[in-house]
């Protein structure tokens, strides 16, 4: 028993170590990339577009291909380990890189000028100005990144492609062993230990977030609340939230961008300056070339007959994708409903918030794929008596919901908290009902937050669908499977070793998701920035 517990502890530590270590790598690399991005327009364009694309394509959909590349390229357990690490890295990195980029982009002009005035070196500027400024944003982004990291590591530690099974040491693989041998006691112990470690990590992150806000957030970010002299503590708390909020600063995005055109013109030799300026675009172009070369390798390695086959199945795949979009829409609607009612309740009720928010943060970090099979086992009969032949569909939607509701919930809650204090007073003053408050004030005021949360929820919902739509041997010999769905096609193709079809389906999916991201999410974000920035409604000289 003691040996088993030690094994579980080691496994949980290995899993948590992978997640936290990869987050740390993301943070450090993000600082340098973000700095280069704000210094070079070319690199910035490539960097931001790449982040937007990769952020919107669920990593799990291309995992089989990545796994094969690593296994065939590097081989052995190191290849599998690196594949798993790569998957988790791609799950956590975009969010953190984007946060750091936005923070660097919005460093106040005055701070940049001070750095330039004293001729700080690159490392000094990073150390004294940019990195401290990005800390609150990183602290805020750590919560979803940890959730994403645990979610994906839980499903990647044990993975099958065709008749080959791959695994690395971690709680996922240890738990898989206990499930296979039917060791219920150890399954429970594993779940409890994992839960405790996640609660501990969330508690530490919350402490770090509080510290980050108290030490690194700027007062000047909160011109609206500083005037509210009647409740200093409240104002300080809100300033923390608004300092974590990227959208507030994005309102000033263009102004700061323009002002950064001012650069150090004195003392530095022109040739050296020119050389330095060439580095970031060179990195950007190199990244593009590597991507183009990889694409060429893939296309040229596929025979003509295979291309015919892939084109012939494309209409069916698109229809399957439509089914999945309907599922995603349902998950998003339910998540929004939850967010609006529970999020608002927490935002206006401090006692409920003090308990509810940490609980939801810990719950969302606890990877759904680990405990979902037990929910499936426990509720199968009762759910089937309600939903009949749609039982599996209901379970898949539920899995999608629990693995993704957090994003829209958290965004909405943060939006309500960051709403100007004056709006809250005015709503009370005019005696508006709940519906009137929502319709006239709260939903418009939180619109930018909602769009950002909905976008993340949609992106993450695909991960839940990918796992749930076809889950052979979910527990015992039971299989969870839906009738139609592109994620199911990818799952089945991967399981049967038809990597070509899986890759093509993933590719089509990626294209649709990117188009959706550009033509819907981006337009909505533009609208949000143009019309629904609540802070612009508060005028102060």
């Amino acid at each position, binding site marked *: 028993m003691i040996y088993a517990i030690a094994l579980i502890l080691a496994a949980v530590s290995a899993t948590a170590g992978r997640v936290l270590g990869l987050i740390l790598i993301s943070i450090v690399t993000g600082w340098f990339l973000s700095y280069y991005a704000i210094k070079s327009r070319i690199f910035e364009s490539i960097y931001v577009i790449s982040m937007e694309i990769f952020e919107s394509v669920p990593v799990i959909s291309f995992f089989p291909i990545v796994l094969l590349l690593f296994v065939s390229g590097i081989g052995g357990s190191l290849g599998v380990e690196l594949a798993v690490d790569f998957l988790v890295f791609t799950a956590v990195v975009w969010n953190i890189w984007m946060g750091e980029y936005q923070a660097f982009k919005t460093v106040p002009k005055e701070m940049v000028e001070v750095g330039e005035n004293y001729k700080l070196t690159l490392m000094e500027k990073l150390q004294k100005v940019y990195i401290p400024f990005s800390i609150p944003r990183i602290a805020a982004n750590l919560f979803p990144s940890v959730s994403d990291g645990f979610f994906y590591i839980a499903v990647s530690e044990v993975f099958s492609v065709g008749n080959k099974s791959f695994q690395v040491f971690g709680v996922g693989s240890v738990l898989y062993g206990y499930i296979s041998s039917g060791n219920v006691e150890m399954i429970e112990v594993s779940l409890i230990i994992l839960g405790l470690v996640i609660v501990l990590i969330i508690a530490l992150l919350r402490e770090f977030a509080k510290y980050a806000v108290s030490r690194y957030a700027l007062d000047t970010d909160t011109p609206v609340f500083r005037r509210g002299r009647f409740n200093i503590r409240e104002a300080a708390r809100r300033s923390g939230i608004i300092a974590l909020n990227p959208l507030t600063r994005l309102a000033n995005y263009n102004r700061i961008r323009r002002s950064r055109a001012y650069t150090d013109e004195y003392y530095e030799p022109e040739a050296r300056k020119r050389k330095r300026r060439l580095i970031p675009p060179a990195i950007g172009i190199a990244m593009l070339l590597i991507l183009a070369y990889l694409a060429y390798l893939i296309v040229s390695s596929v025979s003509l007959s295979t291309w015919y086959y892939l084109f012939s199945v494309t209409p069916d795949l698109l229809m399957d994708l439509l089914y999945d979009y309907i599922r995603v829409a349902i998950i998003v609607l339910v998540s929004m409903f939850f967010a609006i009612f529970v999020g608002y309740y927490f935002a206006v009720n401090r006692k409920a918030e003090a308990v509810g928010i940490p609980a939801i943060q810990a719950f969302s970090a606890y990877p759904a794929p680990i405990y979902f099979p037990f929910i499936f086992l426990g509720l199968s009969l009762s759910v089937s008596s309600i939903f009949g032949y749609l039982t599996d569909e209901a379970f898949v939607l539920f899995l999608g919901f629990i693995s993704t509701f957090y994003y829209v919930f958290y965004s909405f809650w943060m939006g309500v908290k960051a709403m100007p204090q004056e*709006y809250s007073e005015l709503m009370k*003053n005019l005696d508006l009902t709940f519906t*009137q408050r929502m319709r006239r004030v709260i939903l418009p005021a939180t619109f930018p937050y909602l769009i950002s949360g909905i976008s993340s929820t949609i992106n993450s919902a695909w991960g839940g669908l990918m796992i749930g739509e076809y889950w052979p041997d979910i527990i015992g010999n039971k299989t969870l499977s839906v009738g139609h769905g592109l994620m199911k096609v990818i799952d089945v193709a991967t399981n049967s070793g038809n990597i070509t079809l899986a890759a093509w389906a993933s590719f089509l999916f990626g294209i649709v998701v990117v188009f959706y991201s550009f033509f819907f999410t981006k337009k909505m974000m533009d609208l949000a920035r143009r019309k629904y920035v609540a802070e*612009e409604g508060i005028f102060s*000289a």
Partner: protein
Amino acid sequence: MFENKYKVFENIDLTADEGKFIGLVGPSGVGKSTLLRLIGGFLKPSSGTILLEGKPVLKPSPKLVLIHQSIVTFPWMTAIQNVMLSLTPKHLPRDEAREIAARSLETVGLQGFEDLYPKEMSGGMRQRVAIARALAANPTVMLMDEPFAHLDELTAEGIRQDIYNILFNVNFPLKSVIMVSHNLTEVLELADAIYVINGSPATVVARIEVNLPRPRNPKQPDFDRYLDTLYNYLTVRRRPQ
């Protein structure tokens, strides 16, 4: 009283009579805005009561409408939609609500600007929208928390000259106004009576009846005398308890 038992006010007794514009002045940080929010029902006093026409004020209501120091408009609504917001709880037909809102805007001098968004307006115009919105709610008392603090001096002067007549317009049932300000000239230009609060815990140190003819002008001979009186009350050092 704060949670840490720090007493903010002691022996505060204010009266705002019908048809009177009441000024509330005090040093920075003394609790003027807090007092205004207590009067409005936004905060609950740990002891004592606030009465409106003899009935206790227990929560915020449109009868005691607050005008904020930072000018509050909703950027996704036009000027008239901003004003119509205060008519929402009444569930009036849309046309009727629009008509009342238009009348309020006209009263504050914004006829013809109904369909502008706040972003398209100056600070002064935005504050007029906020005042129109408050008037449309048909309040009994209007609470103003340094309403001109974020306007440039010329704009503020312009609104100050209009405000008394706007507020006590016969078309509105407004009975009293309580305005907090640290700008003594501004308070003297507008108020019929001025309460001076000072000390820690803060208390009312004086009520000054202002008997200057309207329209008032800082160049009037007695204006400086009132200013000196106010200044003296504000600079008296009171030992914290």
